[in-house]
């Protein structure tokens, strides 16, 4: 759905993108992560047709962003890191203006705007001025505007910046919902926990180039799309990790990766039910399990390994 090949962009002689490559499949929720100045925003601006690349090819839904910007604009919803809103417009007027700007026929416009208001839970604030909304509401309004023309692809540049924790959770849920509806999402963020939670894969970028982790991969797999493929789980035990590892090794489809006195890392093949069955097996075997989870620090750890700095 998104293909970027050898894309380059310079600003006054300084390279923002230097031969970056990316491939996002249809229906994916894909993350883009890297330090400040890595080239994430530049890439997203090129994909949204805001700026032109110096060289290379970028395609969205089969359309070349440089050669066919109108088709790309129709297929894409873009949300910048600091979404600008007309503060002196009413919420409904704002959505109506953009529905008009996206050439939604006038007979459909009202229904589309009403749907946007409903989905963003802003129906009760439709007649309020934008300036009266909270930051989280404004973010929801901008996302509603981004979705008015039913884009196939969402390009989100640091959408959670400045949101309070609840609004962040809200946004995360909304993105998951949109992704489940079939919208492909490319999300740039510094908040690794969010990317870990919702993205299926994450690309690493720094200095405008693809970065590789220790395993030589420039894309980190966070969700295994094929449920039959193994998933990594972290099992915390009260004591005697060695004994727990013995029970674990005896269970079909489980491979023990790492053992410590109070935790072990296992790879479980098959459906999620297999993991539940394994947990039951451990407990009935007398292992005192205190934690059973997919390791949350993986992305953060790999980020540190690659970039050698603590993410924001």
């Amino acid at each position, binding site marked *: 759905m998104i293909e970027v090949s050898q894309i380059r962009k310079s600003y006054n002689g300084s390279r923002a993108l230097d031969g970056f490559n990316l491939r996002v499949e249809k229906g994916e929720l894909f993350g883009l992560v890297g330090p400040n100045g890595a080239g994430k925003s530049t890439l997203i601006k090129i994909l949204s047709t805001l700026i032109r690349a110096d060289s290379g090819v970028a395609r969205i839904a089969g359309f070349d962003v440089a050669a066919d910007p109108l088709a790309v604009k129709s297929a894409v919803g873009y949300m910048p890191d600091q*979404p*600008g809103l007309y503060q002196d417009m009413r919420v409904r007027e704002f959505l109506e203006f953009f529905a008009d*700007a996206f050439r939604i026929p006038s007979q459909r416009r009202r229904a589309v705007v009403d749907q946007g208001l409903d989905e963003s839970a802003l129906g009760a604030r439709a007649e309020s001025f934008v300036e009266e909304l909270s930051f989280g509401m404004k973010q929801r309004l901008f996302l509603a505007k981004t979705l008015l023309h039913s884009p196939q692809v969402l390009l989100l540049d640091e959408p959670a910046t400045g949101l309070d924790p609840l609004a962040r959770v809200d946004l995360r849920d909304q993105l998951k919902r949109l992704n489940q509806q079939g919208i492909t999402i490319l999300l740039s963020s510094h908040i690794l926990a969010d990317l870990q939670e919702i993205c299926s894969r994450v690309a690493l970028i720094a200095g405008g180039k693809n970065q590789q982790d220790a395993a030589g991969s420039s894309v980190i797999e966070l969700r295994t799309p094929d449920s039959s493929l193994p998933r990594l789980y972290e099992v915390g035990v009260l004591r005697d990790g060695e004994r727990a590892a013995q029970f674990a090794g005896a269970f079909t489809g489980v491979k023990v990766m790492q053992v410590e006195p109070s935790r072990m890392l296992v790879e479980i093949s098959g459906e999620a039910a297999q993991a539940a069955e394994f947990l039951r097996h451990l407990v009935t075997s007398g292992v005192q399990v205190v934690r059973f989870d997919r390791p949350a620090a993986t992305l953060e750890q790999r980020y540190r390994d690659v970039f050698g700095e603590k993410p924001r």
Partner: protein
Amino acid sequence: MNPMIRKELRQRMRERRGWILPSLYLLALCAIISFVYYEQSSESGRTQQGWQFGVTLFLTLAYSQLALLLLMAPIFSAGALTIEKEQRTLPGLLTSLLGPVQIWWGKFAASLMFVLLLLLIGIPVLSAVFAFGGVGPWEVGIVAFTTVVILGTISAISLYWSSAFRRSVHATAVSYVTVVVMTVVTLIIFGIAMSSVRAQDGWHSIPLEVRAPLYLNPLFFLTTALVPKNQLYPEWFTCLGAFVAVAALCAALTLRNLRRSGDVA
């Protein structure tokens, strides 16, 4: 209707200046007409005919109206694009299906419409001159048309500055400087150039390079409109061509800036 025009007009009419400026403009016109009436009627001897008084009043109003509108036009257009940059709303426009031409046209038309509104509300005041005679619909029409062309050009220039700068305050300041250059500096340049020229056979004996700066002077353009119908050629048409050319050039440059503005958006 271009959605930009609808949005712009709605936002402008919501602003406080949307009614303050027309009110001040009307008050200023009324003050000018009262002043002229008082001055003319208190002149010793009172020998002026009614039509002479009408012509004097009309000329005073035409130039005053142009001066007032030259002061107001940059207010509406110089901030039109910079405000989108300041509010960070420009990326939203550029990534919608509105093209740079539609964005420019929406901003230009909305700015000009507001100035036209001022012209329109001044008509009742201007029509007072008909009561004295000496001025017909042709004079009123050509003056109004010339004023619209001048203001359209000033709006296009201000929009260009608005596309070139990031801050409204800078774009507005440079727009006013441009207005001053066009109205005052061209006159001074003409005056300096004239001091070294001996024009014995009237206006047309002055070399073109000496006259040239005046073709960009709004007050001179208005003056060329006040001659009899059959004398509009060549001066009025030359001014018209010069103003339209400047406006077209500014529009083209603004569109180029808009196409490149994703970098700063």
